[in-house]
């Protein structure tokens, strides 16, 4: 697979010797551009570790990861392909968290525009990009509001806009619907599907949320550090 997410034999071991814990064991995963895939598993199964490896915040022990058609990690070839993981995260990965974690002292536009600005784009260009995304996510009318003035659903939509700001090939969503009620959770999933399709972004959604699991066409179950792929219901969101 050229674009999207492609993981081969990814392992992560914490500690060493008798106290070593294998959090991920030979994980394989492929997600096409424009596809939204669920990652489901009980607590301690390795979901967060997988997300952290994909997010380039912890280094895997072994394996190979390709994001957007570019190998970012290969244990056979010395590990990370770039020393600047900060730039890798900024330019190639979008993050959506369980809580929106918007920067409380920036207004909605600047929360979104910050990423392009960090990537070196001009303020005007960055704000125009933010406006475009806020428009697409139907929160443009709150562009000048502070995060504390937004509802939970609005905050999550702004955090989705932020994740898309640098047009990353990959978005990692860590339980993005957890704090939301059914209606808002489904709305968020509709948006993620729409954005994935519109921007050809591969999205992994880590979730426990029973309400949204039937929506995924493909689901990866993770248990004791191993993944099992399963076809989802792919139910349409009404």
């Amino acid at each position, binding site marked *: 697979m050229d674009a999207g997410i492609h993981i081969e034999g990814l392992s992560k071991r914490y500690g060493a010797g008798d106290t070593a814990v294998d959090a991920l064991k030979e994980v394989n995963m492929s997600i096409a551009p424009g596809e939204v895939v669920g990652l489901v598993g009980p607590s301690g199964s390795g979901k967060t570790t997988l*997300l952290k490896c994909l997010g380039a915040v912890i280094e895997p022990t072994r394996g190979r990861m390709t994001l957007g058609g570019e190998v970012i990690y290969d244990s056979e070839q010395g590990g990370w392909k770039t020393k600047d993981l900060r730039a890798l995260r900024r*330019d190639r990965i979008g*993050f959506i968290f369980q809580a929106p974690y918007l920067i409380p002292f920036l207004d909605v536009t600047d929360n979104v525009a910050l990423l392009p600005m*960090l990537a070196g784009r001009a303020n005007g260009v960055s704000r125009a990009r933010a406006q475009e995304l806020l428009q697409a996510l139907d929160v443009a009318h709150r562009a000048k509001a502070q995060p504390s003035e937004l509802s939970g659903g609005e905050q999550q939509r702004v955090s989705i806009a932020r994740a898309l700001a640098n047009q990353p090939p990959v978005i990692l969503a860590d339980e993005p619907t957890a704090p939301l009620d059914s209606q808002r959770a489904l709305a968020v999933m509709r948006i993620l599907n729409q954005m994935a399709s519109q921007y050809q972004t591969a999205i992994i959604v880590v979730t426990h949320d029973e309400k949204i699991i039937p929506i995924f066409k493909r689901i990866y179950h993770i248990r004791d550090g191993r993944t099992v792929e399963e076809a989802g219901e792919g139910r349409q969101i009404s």
Partner: protein
Amino acid sequence: MISLAGRDILHSWGKFVLTGIGLGLLIGATLTMAGVYRGMVDDAQVLLTNSGADIWVVQKDTQGPYAEASNIRDDVYRSVLGLPGVAQAANVTYLTMQVLHGARESRSMVVGFEPGQPGEPTYLVAGRRLLRGHYEAIADVKAGFRLGERIRIRRHDYEVVGLTQRTVSSGGDPMVFIPLKDAQEAQFLKDNDAIIADRARTAANPSLNRPGVPGLLDAVNAAQTVNHSVNAVLVKVGAGSTAESVAQEIRRWKHLQAYTRVQMEEILVAKLIATSAKQIAMFLAILTVVSAAIVAFIIYTMTLGKIREIAVLKLIGTRNRSIAGMILQQALGLGLIGFIVGKIAATLWAPAFPKYVLLESGDALRAFVVVMLVCTLASTLAIRAALKVDPAEAIGG
């Protein structure tokens, strides 16, 4: 690029400004302490300038008249006047005492001087100079006397006929100028009971009260009730002579101590107020450390309150130096607000202090630099904490 520090300050400006005001009051206290020291030095210099003298002639082996007691005969000035290079020489007395006015008391330095001679107040802000030989006074406005008011010095009442300004002792007490003869009496004469007791002792002494020697006892009594002491002779040097050369002549030939202006400044600043200066320096050091601790604590707690946001910022690609810059700018912003508030506070409350507080621009500039340095140092703890934040903390689990 967005100024993260500026936005954060604007977002929580109320908390930030209140903290800055708190810090500012501390900085204001620090500036005031420096001002108190400057005021003491200035008071000492003004004291010397107001005396109008080039040389202070005092009792041998003393550092009088301001730092130590000095007692010399009041005819010494005549022999000093005879020395080459001396233009003017005049007796003066200084006595710090409680001056009564009405039911109130004012601690003042009573100065005895001869009109038209060194030691006379150089300018008046109200009223007139002394015209009568006795019982008139000129007072510094800080003493709180009004023109025409009667004040009591020892056993006599004086009318305040003139007011002057910035004439204070090295201890900050306002000066009250009275005629030299009155001042000598106030300083050196005994009270009535002591005089009566002395006369009785003299009359009982057969060698001083000899039968057949009329007038001896009266002469002895008269000698005991008249005093011919003063504290110092103030000398003005004539054109063509230097104060040091004239002072050397006085030391060599008159067996007296003579100090030039430079030497007198040394005595007042380096010796008389040295302990106070050390005391103030200790306060300044403590206040600086306390200010640094407060800034460090505030910035550190403000940073700890933003750990999650800092983790998110790091995760989405913000450089460490941008985060460190944000914290540093906030610390400097806090210092700037604190300095402005401190400077305004010190300027407003300085006139209310009983002693002169001199706030110099140089001190303010130095304080500004120190505040900025202290804030920079204080922010390092918070920067260290922020740089240690793992971006992985933004991801749950």
